[in-house]
């Protein structure tokens, strides 16, 4: 028994070390097929654990139909849905390919993906470009306006961002996020500071490398008008940080939390790439005018990778303004939420600190043992999609990870270590 305890102790120490030692750098924007060679025709990566067309929720189906039309695999949405129902498309989780995607999380061959390299370990992770607010594909939007914007991201913004990033050899993200935390971001539902800091780092490079003044103006306006532009970069950063933590024998640290609108799934370091799933919860939140809880889809997206590295709901104390926006109570409750998340994590990140907590680090490295023992489920800040395909975002809220995922993972870890 003492040997097992030593294995656990050393494995978790290594997991924490790898998370805190990461050096994520945004280095490029490339076509998804170039980043992920397996991504061929008819293959669609989605958010969350594996799921079939039959079990997909409304917005996920809407996004699948839309992206199939965008890629030229179907002439219209109805034809795309019929093809999906006949099994014409291959559905795989983003997480299987070093990728992540917000909400529905569609990733297909021609879409541009941002590339974050973890220069401490050499691995790379990918995420599509944030489309902005309103009717967008990540919330299940799929009409002509959505597809036209995706085409502009593919043909104009993606190549321009890639060229600019290569010209300055990338943007170091760890220090940028550290500054964002001191400016009121938690990197899930509030990214206004980091989006601004990123634009400040990119503007001169874009001006230097983009020869067309009208295009440059459009690009700068697009980024500047989207407070959540940095979210997708934070997500790719999270994936780049957590991937090297996989497969440490005996480690009980969570390496992924994700949801597909039907199931919530987690992965645990000592259990490799196995998913532990439970029915996903409904967010508790606030709704845009004209919408209410009856319109809401259950929780969705790979964006919980930011909570997995100590941001989002775990860093709520850095962003008290978000507590009200997502319906998590008074701003004064934000510190309580971060303190509570400290109960289920193994470390604080000394480089990502929160001024309002006397510069304590964000709670880092979720331990499934602590989650099960305390009954404290990870707190997640999230957007809320309409339950019907094609509508888009209807609100924002908070949601808890289902405890059943952590309990089943703990049994599996016990079996793997030979104690059950």
């Amino acid at each position, binding site marked *: 028994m003492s040997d*097992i305890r*030593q294995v*656990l102790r050393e494995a*978790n120490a290594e997991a924490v070390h790898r998370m805190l030692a990461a050096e994520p750098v945004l280095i490029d924007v490339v076509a998804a097929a170039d980043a992920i060679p397996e991504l061929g025709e008819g293959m669609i990566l989605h958010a969350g654990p594996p799921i079939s067309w039959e079990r997909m929720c409304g917005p996920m189906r809407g996004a699948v139909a839309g992206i199939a039309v965008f890629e030229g695999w179907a002439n219209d949405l109805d034809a795309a849905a019929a093809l999906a129902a006949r099994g014409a498309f291959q559905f795989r989780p983003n997480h299987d390919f070093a990728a992540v995607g917000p909400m529905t999380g569609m990733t297909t061959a021609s879409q541009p993906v941002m590339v974050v390299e973890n220069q401490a370990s050499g691995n790379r992770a990918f995420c599509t470009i944030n489309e902005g607010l309103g009717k967008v594909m990540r919330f299940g939007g799929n009409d002509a306006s959505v597809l036209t914007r995706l085409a502009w991201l593919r043909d104009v913004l993606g190549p321009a961002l890639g060229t600019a990033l290569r010209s300055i050899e990338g943007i170091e993200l760890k220090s940028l996020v550290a500054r964002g935390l001191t400016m009121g971001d938690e990197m899930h539902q509030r990214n206004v500071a980091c989006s601004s800091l990123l634009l400040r780092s990119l503007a001169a490079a874009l001006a230097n490398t983009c020869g067309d003044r009208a295009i440059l103006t459009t690009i700068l306006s697009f980024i500047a008008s989207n407070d959540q532009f940095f979210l997708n970069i934070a997500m790719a950063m999270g994936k780049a940080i957590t991937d090297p933590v996989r497969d440490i024998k005996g480690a009980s640290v969570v390496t992924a939390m994700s949801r597909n609108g039907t199931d919530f799934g987690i992965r645990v370091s000592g259990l490799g790439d196995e998913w532990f799933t439970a029915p996903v919860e409904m967010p508790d939140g606030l709704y845009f005018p004209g919408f209410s809880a009856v319109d809401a889809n259950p929780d969705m997206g790979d964006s919980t990778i930011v909570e997995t590295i100590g941001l989002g709901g775990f860093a709520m104390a850095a962003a008290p303004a978000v507590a009200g926006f997502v319906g998590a109570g008074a701003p004064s409750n934000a510190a309580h939420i971060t303190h509570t998340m400290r109960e289920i994590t193994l470390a604080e990140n000394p480089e990502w600190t929160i001024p309002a907590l006397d510069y304590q680090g964000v709670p880092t490295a979720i331990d499934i*043992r602590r989650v*099960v023992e305390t009954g404290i489920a990870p707190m997640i800040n999230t957007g809320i999609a309409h339950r019907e395909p094609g509508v888009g975002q209807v609100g924002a809220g908070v949601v808890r990870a289902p405890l059943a995922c952590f309990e089943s993972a703990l049994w599996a*870890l*016990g079996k793997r270590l030979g*104690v059950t």
Partner: protein
Amino acid sequence: MSKTSKSPLVVKAKPASLIQGSPRVVNVGLSGFAEALAAQGVAVIQVDWSPPARGDADLATLLSKLSD
């Protein structure tokens, strides 16, 4: 237990002092008790607590084997 015992468990305050003045309460566990007291103006501190593994004996045993 005699009053002269040096045991730390000895209650040195006179019992009468407990009912003199306003009560001050630390509530452990179910918050409903604390909320009811607070609603009546009683000074109360809530301590969040629940049985390990939500009272699941099998999980608690497993946790004991995997603790470090």
